[in-house]
């Protein structure tokens, strides 16, 4: 660390990192402090700007993907119909755009990346925080107004990422123990994190590049544990241990361990999406409830996020069921037999849940655009789908016109050739390409087509 050596050699020369008022910072610097505030507390020879930059580079790319797909997720709920939470976000959203219905796997991809990517990054975030923990306790805590403000902004960064990880991880496991609305907390927490993340990248990107470029990028991966030495250039970061202990792990082992941890998380992300690999998601409860509670293997034996019991749907729903279409000159009421007589279509479409699981099934039913024509509104601007579910945030969903008119959008009566099971929305459910799972309304009772 040439800088500090210089300082010791000529104590009169001001430390360039010290701003106004310099005497204050200098006085603070002279106070002897006990651990964990003294620099000698931090002994790992692995810490250094190169290691932190490796984790930082991974997070720069990974977090960008998770942030963008997360903000896209908000738009897929069509907030402009007043059906997203939080309801009023002011300018805090991506530009609103008509939701595409093709490719049908678009939402499956973006939401899978958001949830799976978030899980995979958990070990990287923990490793990155470990690598910079000496900075948290560094003495003096700041040496200029610039550092003071930067440390305040780190609260948004670190608090944001930890808050988003905790709420996200709890939500995908049905744990709402935090007591506030998940959507409200996770959405606003994301914007605080974005505020911290963007400014951190702006301020630290040059340091990251310098640390990675010093020597070859992989230079510090060659050493075995016994050969491991502290990094030679601190780049003014204060991360390299001043009193390192003998190494017990090499940098390549540490990087491999973090990658292995991400791999354990990736197993769950993949197992939530690929049917043949479901057992890999061995600790994930989402996507493991099946539509045939008695364990009967059949076409309706796939993931359920919300059972009929949970939605308050009684098993005798079919006895009096008829679909009510409105919006035209007069309401139209269609029995199941009427629907069957309309001419059924079969489409293979994915269903993807906001909590990250997804699957592909073959659905058979009446095209939504045929129902619109039957109701007397052949080109609706929107359609309001009403479930028989009495309460719940998704009992009523507005679809945009292009989603109703998309040729592959169905009011499904059957899946995989069998009638829908009660848990999958019997007698009829909506299935629209690239629409979030919760908006594919189950137990549909009425549809209102609006001009």
């Amino acid at each position, binding site marked *: 660390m040439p800088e500090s050596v210089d300082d010791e050699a000529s104590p009169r020369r001001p430390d360039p990192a*010290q*701003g*106004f008022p310099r005497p204050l910072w200098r006085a603070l610097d002279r106070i002897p402090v006990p651990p964990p505030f003294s620099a000698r507390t931090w002994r790992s020879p692995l810490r250094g700007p190169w290691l932190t930059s490796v984790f930082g580079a991974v997070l720069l790319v990974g977090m960008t993907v998770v942030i963008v797909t997360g903000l896209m997720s908000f738009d897929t709920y069509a907030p402009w119909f007043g059906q997203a939470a939080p309801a009023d976000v*002011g*300018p*805090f959203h991506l530009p609103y755009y008509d939701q595409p219905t093709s490719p049908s796997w678009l939402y499956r991809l973006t939401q899978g990346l958001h949830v799976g990517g978030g*899980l995979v990054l*958990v*070990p990287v975030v923990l490793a990155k925080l470990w690598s910079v*923990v000496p900075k*948290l306790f560094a003495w003096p805590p700041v*040496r*200029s*107004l*610039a550092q003071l403000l*930067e440390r305040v*902004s780190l609260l948004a960064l*670190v*608090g*944001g990422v*930890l*808050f988003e990880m905790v709420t996200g991880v*709890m939500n995908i*496991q*049905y*744990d709402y123990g*935090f007591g*506030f609305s998940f959507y*409200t907390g996770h959405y606003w*927490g994301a*914007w*605080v994190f974005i*505020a*911290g993340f963007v*400014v951190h990248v*702006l*301020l630290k990107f040059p340091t990251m590049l310098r640390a990675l470029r010093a020597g070859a990028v992989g*230079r510090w991966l*060659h*050493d075995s*544990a016994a*050969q491991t*030495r502290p990094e*030679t250039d601190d780049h003014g970061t204060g991360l390299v241990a001043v009193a*390192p*202990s003998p190494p*017990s*792990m090499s940098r390549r*082992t540490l990087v491999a*361990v973090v990658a292995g*941890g991400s791999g354990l*998380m990736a197993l769950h992300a993949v197992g939530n999406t690929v049917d043949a690999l479901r057992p890999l998601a061995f*600790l*994930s*409860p989402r996507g*493991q409830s099946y539509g045939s509670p008695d364990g009967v293997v059949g076409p309706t034996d796939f993931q359920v*996020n*919300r*059972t009929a019991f*949970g939605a308050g749907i009684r098993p005798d729903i079919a006895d009096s069921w008829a679909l009510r279409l409105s919006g035209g000159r007069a309401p139209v009421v269609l029995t199941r037999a009427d629907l069957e007589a309309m001419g059924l279509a079969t489409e293979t479409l994915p269903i993807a849940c906001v909590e990250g699981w997804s699957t592909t099934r073959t659905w058979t039913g009446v095209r939504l655009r045929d129902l619109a024509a039957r109701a007397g509104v052949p080109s609706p601007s929107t359609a309001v789908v009403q479930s028989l579910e009495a309460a719940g945030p998704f009992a009523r969903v507005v679809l945009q016109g292009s989603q109703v008119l998309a040729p592959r959008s169905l009011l499904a009566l059957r899946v995989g050739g069998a009638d829908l099971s009660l848990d999958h929305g019997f007698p009829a459910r909506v299935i629209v390409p690239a629409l979030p799972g919760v908006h594919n309304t189950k137990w549909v009772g009425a549809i209102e087509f609006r001009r």
Partner: protein
Amino acid sequence: MTRAWRAFTRSYGANPLHLLALLGSFALVGGVLYHVVDDPDAELIGIWFLGAVIAHDLVLYPLYALADRGLAAGRWARRRVTGRPPRVPGTNHVRIPAMGSLLLLGVFWPTVGGAAEPVLRFAAGLDTAPFLDRWLLATAALFLGSAVVYAVRLGRAARRPVGTDPPPGTDPHPRTEGS
């Protein structure tokens, strides 16, 4: 202009763009607070936000650092007793599976610990009973795998004739520094 810039940089501690970027960031956070402050959940969200930082930085981190000190103390004690380095260092064969196991436990705590049970049963008709067993099995598999690798490395080391071990501290990048 340049002089003013330099004077600012000297007293502030970084160039003016640094301040501009941070002010932008604070403005964004301010905008979020403005929107969220009237929400009935605002207080609880704030508590969890700060709680997450405190829980990680001042509870979780010291705990795992302390646990790792235990392994370091074991290594130190061993050196004091035998005086010669181990044929194959065992520390990481405990450390790494423990890290994997604790990562799974931490991330899937609501499921493994059963906190998610009521909602899971109501919404999906599932219970969390099998998940504790699965986590225990995964933990056993991680430690078993690590033990097998350790045994293989021990066997290899035993077959290596004495004296051909690379001397500890061999440095592929010779440097002039003394440690």
